[in-house]
């Protein structure tokens, strides 16, 4: 074989490998199709088949951060928090500027109680993207967890300034206001606006109920917290809020029965 032919083969092989999917002979179109199908399966709730598809894409295109992120989302949906975190980390290793994976990883860290790590993770993301609403919102949640309510309020306000009306950001700002015992009328307005956009969102219903409690409007408070608990019976925070309200208004039997009910749910402690 002439040296020229050898060179040509080498160049061809390099190009083939560089494409990242040459070894299996998979084209981008096929990968996209499988990716879309996997996402569809996730939305339909067929998580087992969706997982198979994502793993297949990852085997075929191991340098695509989006696949790891979506597989992480799938594990998150399955409640496998640690596995989800690992996938988000892999996505970030491949692309440190991948903000969605960064925010998702921060959510995992918050769930694991690693507030400081989550905060650091989001602050790193904020350096190149100071005007990212999701990061600001995430930082707000971290600060709320750390008890820095005023800082949390600043972050949530900034998130709203950047992105405009968003039920999740409204909800978070309202909750921070409630925790600060300040701007409670504004908190009520924000919650009501969030609820208009998402009337069946248990988190928003919980916040509205909690704000009503802070306002001393107890019938509305218990009504909304009850609705929230019906939608999210496994959410300890919602149960804890309702227990607090019942105790405060002297309905101790209702509070006790809620506690007992909660202790029967696996993974629930006493609120």
């Amino acid at each position: 074989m002439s040296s020229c032919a050898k060179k040509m083969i080498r160049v061809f092989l390099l190009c083939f490998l560089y494409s990242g999917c040459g070894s299996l002979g998979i084209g981008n179109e096929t990968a996209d199709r499988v990716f879309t199908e996997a996402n569809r399966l996730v939305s339909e709730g067929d998580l087992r088949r969706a997982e198979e598809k994502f793993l297949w894409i990852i085997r075929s295109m191991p340098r695509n951060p989006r696949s790891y992120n979506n597989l992480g989302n799938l594990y998150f949906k399955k409640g496998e928090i640690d596995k989800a975190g690992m996938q988000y980390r892999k996505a970030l290793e491949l692309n440190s500027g991948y903000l969605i994976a960064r925010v998702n990883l921060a959510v995992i860290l918050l769930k694991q109680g690693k507030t400081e790590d989550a905060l650091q993770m989001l602050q790193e993301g904020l350096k190149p993207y100071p005007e990212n609403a999701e990061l600001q919102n995430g930082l707000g949640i971290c600060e709320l967890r750390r008890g820095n309510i005023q800082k949390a309020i600043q972050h949530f306000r900034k998130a709203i300034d950047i992105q405009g009306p968003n039920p999740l950001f409204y909800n978070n700002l309202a909750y921070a206001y409630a925790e600060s015992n300040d701007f409670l009328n504004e908190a009520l307005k924000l919650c009501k606006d969030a609820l208009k956009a998402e009337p069946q969102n248990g988190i928003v219903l919980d916040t509205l109920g909690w704000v009503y409690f802070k306002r001393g409007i107890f019938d509305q408070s218990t009504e909304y917290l009850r609705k929230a608990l019906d939608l999210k019976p496994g959410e300890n925070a919602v149960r804890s809020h309702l227990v607090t309200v019942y105790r405060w208004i002297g309905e101790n039997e209702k509070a006790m029965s809620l506690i007992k009910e909660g202790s029967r749910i696996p993974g629930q402690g006493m609120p």
Partner: protein
Amino acid sequence: MTRKEMRKERKPLLDWKMIRIPRVLVRVFVIFILILVLAVSFPIFLKKEGGRFPFLVKIGSFFGLQASPEKKQDEPDSNVMDVYFARLVYVKGDVNVKSQKELKFQKAEKDQILREGDTIRTYSGGYAEVLFDEGNKLTIKPDSLVVIHDMKENRLTKIRKSSINLLQSDVEAVVRRPKIEGSEFVIVTPTALAKISEAKVAVQVSKEQESKLKVFSGAVDVKVGGESMEVVRNQSVDISKEKKIREIKDLPAPPKLGSPENLAEFFFKNLSEMKMVLKWDDSLSGVTYRIQVALDPYFTDLVIVRTGLSEKGVVVQGLKSGIYYWRVSSITSEGNEGDFSDYSVFKITIDQTPPDIVLDDLLLLKVSGKVNAQISGQTEPDAAVTINDVPVLPDKTGRFKYVLSQISSDTEITIVAVDRVGNRKIVKKTVQNP
């Protein structure tokens, strides 16, 4: 055999000549179908840009048919208004409502829908709160007569116009920033018209038809006679019955509540012991304060009202067990009262009942020949528990558990629970034959 011959050979399945339909019947049927097609297609064709099928229009007009009066889609009538509704979200005491079509007032109900032309009347001690569709709130105080004049939304621009007419009245309105620019909330009194786009205002109309408008936040355009002016935050304007502006006054800003913090709980053993201090902050000097303590967040059930307070705090005594709401306003030396502060909530518990102690069955555990006893039970949340003088920490629900080691026959166990105000309960139990 040729193909033609073969075809001729084939016998038809049905000989059509066998069925004879009268010619007249066929004609009638064809005409009927034609009329049906025309009737269906005519209005559809006409709608399409009106002139695409002019011949059909002519035919239609010849037969006396006209195009439907429906408007073209891209040219909606800018004057078409949709009516929306308001709701009575709070009613207390004597409150009546009269709809435009009725002659008599009817008793108002909570969550009652209010429409254009409805009149709301509150009598002495009567309060009502009206929530408009766009989130604006109108609080109607006792002895008021309010007419909902307009509640319209422009179908094209979505601009909303709400207006209420006040006769002798005392109302407060909180108007939110409109979602659509140009929307407005108008309050009309016998002597003035106030256009509000985002503000908190209080309006009083006296028996003598004099009006007083206070602006606590935002700004309001006020028209009096031919004169127009803007009244801004913490300003008040008095308008005479002759439709003349008497004067514009500055109002003091509301104080900020200090202690107790919102949702604080206080426990007392006796009503005579009940004593607490309510404090607030204010940067103004030379003002006095009015404090209100009520049993409801609308401040309709007032239990304490004190005015002329020069200190930024007041001692409150003799409140029974219950939930209380309190707020403060500042009053200038000229007697101009500003808006009330935001309210805060506190709870008083007069507790003379000792905490209950419910013990579980005693659990005896033998460890290396010695007997230990596990005592567990339930008491009031937050009660302090001791077992044989050893403090035991109950959980949030009041459950406690303690292991008493090396007990012998006839060992006496004394469980004491003391609640927050010092009520004490003692339960004794003797262990027999461990």
